[in-house]
């Protein structure tokens, strides 16, 4: 009995130290990406190519989801607002919900599932098939040539995708609120224009999506690079990317929101 307790405490301790060690490795890896980013900035074509794979190919899911989220906001928002006789404020509700919260957060969650998992799987498979080792033996640093362009592509794509998500969401809210339900079009747009502040709302939303982009891209490239070079290892790393990114996005969103919007 006593031995079992000792063994379980020891197992717990090992898991904790393993996690801390891995976090340290991930931090050093993050630093290495910055140190070896010269190639992806000098030869920007490498990053553009990855922006196509991570950003452009994520457009469909982002645009369609944005549209539906905006449409649902339009329905739910109208239902609540009309109880208080302020259904003209629907434009404000839809726009603020999207640019402050739903745009960056939902777009980031979708981006983590669509692009983050693909980045991890690609780098993990390159490792499993010795392509990264081959690159090293050809005197080409895989962090500079493979990892950094994918990282920066994710960081640059994320704010753009979040902006498109919000724009499509506003359009979806407009379709449902104005065209379907019949909210006054002038009030919908003018109240939105009057109440959405560029610095407070839009810029803060962009900052959020940029931070989420860094988090997702970092986790995705790290998990791929650190994946065990087997089919099972790559599959596990891909799952970890989606799960860890999603939790990290939600936690970071809470922290950022606490700093940005303090009810002032």
């Amino acid at each position, binding site marked *: 009995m006593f031995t079992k307790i000792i063994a379980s405490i020891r197992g717990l301790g090992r898991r904790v130290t393993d996690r801390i060690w891995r976090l340290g490795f991930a931090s050093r890896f993050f630093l290495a990406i910055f140190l070896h980013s010269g190639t992806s900035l000098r030869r920007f074509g490498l990053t553009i190519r990855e922006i196509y794979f991570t950003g452009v190919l994520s457009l469909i899911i982002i645009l369609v989801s944005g549209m539906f989220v905006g449409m649902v906001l339009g329905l739910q928002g109208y239902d609540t607002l009309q109880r208080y006789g302020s259904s003209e404020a629907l434009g404000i509700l839809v726009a603020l919900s999207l640019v402050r919260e739903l745009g960056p957060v939902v777009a980031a969650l979708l981006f983590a599932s669509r692009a983050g998992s693909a980045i991890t799987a690609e780098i993990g498979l*390159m490792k499993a098939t*010795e*392509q990264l*080792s*081959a690159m*090293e033996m*050809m005197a*080409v640093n895989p962090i500079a040539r493979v990892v950094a362009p994918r990282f920066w592509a994710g960081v640059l794509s994320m704010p753009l995708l979040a902006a498109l998500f919000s724009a499509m969401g506003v359009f979806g809210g407009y379709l449902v609120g104005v065209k379907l339900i019949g909210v006054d079009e002038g009030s919908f747009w003018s109240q939105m224009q009057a109440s959405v502040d560029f610095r407070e709302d839009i810029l803060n939303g962009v900052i959020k999506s940029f931070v989420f982009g860094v988090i997702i891209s970092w986790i995705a490239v790290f998990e791929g690079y650190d994946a065990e070079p087997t089919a099972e290892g790559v599959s596990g790393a891909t799952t970890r990317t989606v799960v860890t990114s999603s939790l990290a996005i939600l936690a970071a969103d809470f922290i950022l929101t606490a700093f940005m919007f303090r009810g002032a």
Partner: protein
Amino acid sequence: MPVEPLVKISNLSFAYDNRPVLTGINMEIHRGKVVAIMGSSGCGKTTTLRLLGGQLKPTSGYVSVGGQVVHELGDDALYALRRRMGMLFQFGALFTDMSVYDNVAFQMREHTDLPDQLIHDLVLMKLNAVGLRGVHHLMPSELSGGMARRVALARAIALDPMLIMYDEPFAGLDPISLSIVGQLIRTLNDALGACSIVVTHDVQESLKIVDYVYFVSEGKIVAEGTAEEIRNSKAPYVHQFVWGEADGPVPFQYPARPYGDAILREVPRVH
């Protein structure tokens, strides 16, 4: 005055954590030679290649290539040395998102400022040397195993290296591809005036092309000699290996408790 060897391995030992993989290895390999490192799986052959390429650091001893001690080099010097090395990985390790042409051109584009036209000519020359000029437009997924290996060989010699390393170049090839790859290793080495190290356990094919053989067992060199000496060797391990005998110094049975005890007394627990 004796000629300095291109590759010198001196009293080399290496361990993963506390598990020794190589112990007291010594080798000298000269330019123009094709040398095989043979031994059963897990004996430390591939580890030796990784130490040569600077992907691992020795526990003790050293590896020197072209007069430079590999593990003492900084990143820049190591990368400069690697530009003069070529390596063929076991399954080619071609970049799957690039065509055959782009794979072979990869190092030229990364390390030189050559104009596109010249790179084009060089790539076709390299592919022609391995007999695959006609597949330059294909993707790696469209190649057979043997063709992928030959394209990887063309990529490995893209910058005319002084040292070419081959990790199991014959694994999984049909007899024709096997013979072609074997001949290519020899002819390319002679044409480039390079030095080739072939890690393999394909005895018959490699003995046809190599100048010298090192036999590694349990991390130590247990025999060495020319192909002829190895064929005629009476050393039990070498004899078993060369002639593919099922039992010998490397036993057929993995060490275990006596058979009778295991059958009569051990009842495995079913979970």
